[in-house]
């Protein structure tokens, strides 16, 4: 029974692998479709160049032979002209081949990069949660490189090798069929060898490309976490981590090269042994007068010529296998359906009121534990909803459901009565300003960073947004004003300044709904005040969801929701919750009351001597700019 099923599945499995290869290569080759002219041109040039390289020398020798033998000195010029023309033709073909074969790979790499980039943009947060930047980068660099190189070094060589092999085989068959058949005996042997090496190369390249991605992640993390590495004195540890992964990649690559180094000469050996066999059989036949010596000489010489395409076979198998592994990694990304997609009949909302409802919302990441349960919120337009709860209680999750970064697993969220799953994502998000916890600024000018969500914003609008975010004076004090560069991840700005840039860019989007995630806390006292002011201005008239830790914000909220383990355990206003004497009241006593006392205390102090904080910072910057 068992043996039977194995016997059946074995060829089936083989067939499936074959189909698998065919599918990946067909898809890789499919990228040639828009560039078919270049592709065909490169193949034609390749054939032309190869043919000319074989024919031209003979042709020249022939022309010289005839020309000079005729003894006519005047023909020398003609001969020279012929030589020049032939050489130039050959040169042009070589140029075309050299250029076009590279050009094909360059344009395919360009397309692949664009397609991949667009796909990464389409993929939802959940995908980016799962996949490290380093791995994705590796796919966008190393793997694209491997696929693109398969064109000049793999596919084109296959064509030329097959053509050369085929034409020599035809010549051999014409010369002497029995001897040709003996030589063609080598074909199944070569194929068998290829299958063997392919089967062993495939897992090697699969792991090599995978590990290259891991190496890339290690590299990326250890460079972006430089401060942590430095302060814990973990350089040696990081180096060791990198080295061991690097050694792993090296060993895998050495293994692939060793296999290629073993295989290629072996294929040549197989061919040469067959040639020797021909020499033996043919030689005997010549001695027995069944074959003419010149024929045998010609057959052997053509057989030796077969060495070139066979050598190429060995070389290009490596490239093709590498491209297969890389192609698979690329297609994995391209074939991942975004977890969140616009419904086919999704509508766009040009204007909204800002009425947000969470109706019996439940959520879990994949099959993971339930993060949110029975969440019901009714936020009227313009209301401020404050969320409170311990870390991990689900506050941030609630906020990320609203712009549909993740889809609810139960219930629904509506905006102005529309289920957000029935809206176009772009149209939904345009109405939601999201100030994230860690502010990510792009390597660009402050102006570009503020205009990030509204690239068409005018200078006046940008300045106005910066003013509302209490950023304008600070920006003007910078050496280049709005043109000042914000370095990698915005390192040249302090936490508070980054936060205000994030607020300014949200203001510029002019959303009806505002989502603030702990946005006010990572700033010092002075900036806190500035940001509070900025936020006050922004929140006015907008439906706002805020994870709050400031009493001020909490007291101002129309609804306060207390979360615990993914459920709303208390809701109400500051007064009603305090009166209820539950968790909020307890929290208030522990934490917030202190803030209130502090506030009261500071009110007494306030007004004695106003300090021009803004001017102070400004003058300091102006000074340093000088």
């Amino acid at each position: 029974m068992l043996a039977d099923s194995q016997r059946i599945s074995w060829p089936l499995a083989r067939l499936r692998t074959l189909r698998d290869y065919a599918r990946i290569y067909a898809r890789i080759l499919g990228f040639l479709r828009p560039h078919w002219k270049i592709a065909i041109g490169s193949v034609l040039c390749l054939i032309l160049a190869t043919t000319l390289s074989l024919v031209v020398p003979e042709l020249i020798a022939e022309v010289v032979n005839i020309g000079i033998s005729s003894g006519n000195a005047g023909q020398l010029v003609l001969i020279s002209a012929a030589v020049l023309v032939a050489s130039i033709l050959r040169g042009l073909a070589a140029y075309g081949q050299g250029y076009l074969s590279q050009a094909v790979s360059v344009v395919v790499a360009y397309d692949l990069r664009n397609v991949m980039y667009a796909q990464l943009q389409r993929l939802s947060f959940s995908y980016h949660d799962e996949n490290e930047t380093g791995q994705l980068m590796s796919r966008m660099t190393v793997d694209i490189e491997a696929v693109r190189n398969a064109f000049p070094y793999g596919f084109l060589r296959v064509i030329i090798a097959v053509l050369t092999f085929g034409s020599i085989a035809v010549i051999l068959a014409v010369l002497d069929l029995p001897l040709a058949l003996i030589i063609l005996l080598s074909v199944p042997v070569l194929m068998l060898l290829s299958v063997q090496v392919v089967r062993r190369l495939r897992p090697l390249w699969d792991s090599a490309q995978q590990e290259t991605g891991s190496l890339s992640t290690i590299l990326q993390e250890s460079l972006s976490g430089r401060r942590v590495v430095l302060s814990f004195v973990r350089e040696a540890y990081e180096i060791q981590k990198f080295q061991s992964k690097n050694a792993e990649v090296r060993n895998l690559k050495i293994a692939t090269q060793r296999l290629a180094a073993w295989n290629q000469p072996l294929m040549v050996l197989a061919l040469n042994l067959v040639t020797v066999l021909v020499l033996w059989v043919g030689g005997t036949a010549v001695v027995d007068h069944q074959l003419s010596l010149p024929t045998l000489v010609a057959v052997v010489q053509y057989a030796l010529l077969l060495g070139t395409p066979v050598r190429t076979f060995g070389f290009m198998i490596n490239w093709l296998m590498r491209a297969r592994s890389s192609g698979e990694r690329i297609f994995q990304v391209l074939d991942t359906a975004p977890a969140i997609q616009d419904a086919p009949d999704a509508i766009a909302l040009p204007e909204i009121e800002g009425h947000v409802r969470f109706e019996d919302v439940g959520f879990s990441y994949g099959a993971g534990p339930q993060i949110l349960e029975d969440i019901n919120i009714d936020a009227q337009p313009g209301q401020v909803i404050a969320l409170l709860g311990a870390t991990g209680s689900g506050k941030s999750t609630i906020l990320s459901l609203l712009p549909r970064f993740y889809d609810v697993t139960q219930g629904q969220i509506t905006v102005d009565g529309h289920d957000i799953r029935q809206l176009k994502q772009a149209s939904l998000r345009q109405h939601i300003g999201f100030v994230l916890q860690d502010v990510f600024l792009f390597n660009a000018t402050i102006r570009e960073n503020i205009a990030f969500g509204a690239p068409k914003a005018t200078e006046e609008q940008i300045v106005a947004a910066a003013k509302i975010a209490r950023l304008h004076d600070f920006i003007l004090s910078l050496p280049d004003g709005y043109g000042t560069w914000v370095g990698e991840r915005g390192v040249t700005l302090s936490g508070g300044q980054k936060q205000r840039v994030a607020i300014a860019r949200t203001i510029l989007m002019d959303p009806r709904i505002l989502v603030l995630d702990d946005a006010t806390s990572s700033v010092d006292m002075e900036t806190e005040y500035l940001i509070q002011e900025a936020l006050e201005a922004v929140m006015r008239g907008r439906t706002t969801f805020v994870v709050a830790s400031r009493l001020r914000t909490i007291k101002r909220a129309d609804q306060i929701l207390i979360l615990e383990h993914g459920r709303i355990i208390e809701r109400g206003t500051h007064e009603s919750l305090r009166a209820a004497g539950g968790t909020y009241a307890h929290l208030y006593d522990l934490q917030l009351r202190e803030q209130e006392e502090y506030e009261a205390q500071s009110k007494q102090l306030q007004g004695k001597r106003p300090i021009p904080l803004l001017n102070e910072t400004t003058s300091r910057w102006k000074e340093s700019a000088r």
Partner: protein
Amino acid sequence: MKSHSYAEYRRSRRWLENSLASDDEDISGGFDWRLVGRFRSYLGRYPLVSLASVVLMVVYTGLNIATPLLIGVAFDDFIAHGDLRGLVFAIGGLIVLNVAMWQAQYWQVWSMSWVGEQVLYLLSCDMFEHLQRLSLSFYDRTQIGRVMSRLQSDVDVLESMLSSGLLSMLSSLLALGGIIVVMLVLNVRLALLAFLVLPLMVIIAAFWQKHAHYSFRVTRAAISLVNATLQENISGMRVIQSMVREDQNRADFDDLNAYNRDTNLVASRIAALILPLVEVVAALAIVATIFAGAVLISHRSLTVGVLVAFILYINRFFDPIRDLSQQYTQLQRSGVAAERIFNILDMPVEIQDRPDAKVLPPIRGEVEFRDVTFGYKADMPIFRGLSFVIPAGKTVALVGHTGAGKSTIAGLLTRFYDVQQGAVLVDGYDVREVTQASLRSQIGMVLQDPFLFTGTIRENICYGRLDASDEEVETAARVIGVHDLIMQLAKGYETTIRERGRNLSVGQRQLIAFARALLADPRILILDEATANIDTVTEVLVQQGLQRLLHGRTALVIAHRLSTIKNADQITVLQRGQIIEQGNHEELLAQNGTYAQLYAHGFGKAGGAEA
């Protein structure tokens, strides 16, 4: 030239301003041939294998030439004479020859690619090690994507060169030498005439090389920009999606991607140009030979047969030159990649241990800034003669405006940056006179952005002390108050943290960072806005843990949380890089100075606005 335009366009938008330095993407200047020497030092680490590879290649080439010769012998001496016994010998010889050839080539290719991979491994490890030595100031102005591009993409370019390029070049040279000898034997005068075109070849190559080198540099710089942009976009994908910026960023990326494509097309065109040039030179050599040959034939000092044979040899003479021209292109590309790699290796390390640096003994934790002058740019000092002392075991809170220099003090204490004048002392030791490792291992730092590594929670907590036991990890977590939170997770301490900890809330990350710092057990602790991301509810939990963490340690706290500031032994108010007030909370309020005003301003005025 089109290939230049984007760089200029970018420069005009000051794109290169803060990145891996504009000079670093410099695409002018000639090829530095000293690079070759530096490479030799890497290859030189495997002298025997390299030598074996070269010897094997010569052996293989010899055997390869011997094969047709032996076949010729088989034809002329045995088959033509009906000598079957002899034919058997010849065939036996051929089989032995081919098997030997097979083995020679296998070992040769393998040994060479082995050496190549080793060299690449050493190079990338050296680069990484050097990057680990470079000071923070390098990272302040460097885009990580660009560094990564050098470590990966440029190293990749070297790969094919090292694994096969060098040897095929050598083999082409060998073939060239062989053919030159044969031609000289055949006819000295004609041979010399044919060689006359070689200088022409060299001139063309030199001229071509200048363009090619420039063009290859442009392509390497372009791919580096592409990679850096990609990297930034992938890291910032959440912002892009939440601000509905996809279309704009796709267009921007396409712009850059197209620029990269076009520079590569230009480079391919230049690279391919060498091929027709070689053909033309070859044709000239043949034409010259034809004319000279005709003259010689008319003088009866040459036969037509020899001339024709000779012309065929000229063609064969140009075969290795054709190969060489291709390999030369490869060499140029690799040279550019090597330049970029050595550029990183040559990046000066600004902060180094002095040769006589001592190991800092276990400290009590007294910190002194003595007359410190410092600025990130020397001509823009932040501190001018800053002096203060933190007694061992005390907690000092730093208060002041953004940009007053609070974080800078932390950076100087850990010697991320060196002071320009004055000194930073720990227990009386100048931080510049002790080893960085011994200094930093006694100073812990918790930053506002709690950077966690991919790995389990346990591994992350252990980061400060790799040999910590499971109990110690748990104890640290308990002290901080994060143990229960961790246990709530499905896999507890074995929960895998995704890149930068994005599967945890910022509060959870911050607490894990506290536990990590606690486990490292430093004598001096710096908290740089470390409690900023902790929400109100969690803060109740953290306060206790924080007090335990600070207990008995010298602590420098940069914070705006009232609770943290109030509990400090001493509050230092900084303004424009100078200490303007010092004392505890009550004292400073009583003084009614800047602190009191900051305090009042913080909530007071905001409270007023509400009313």
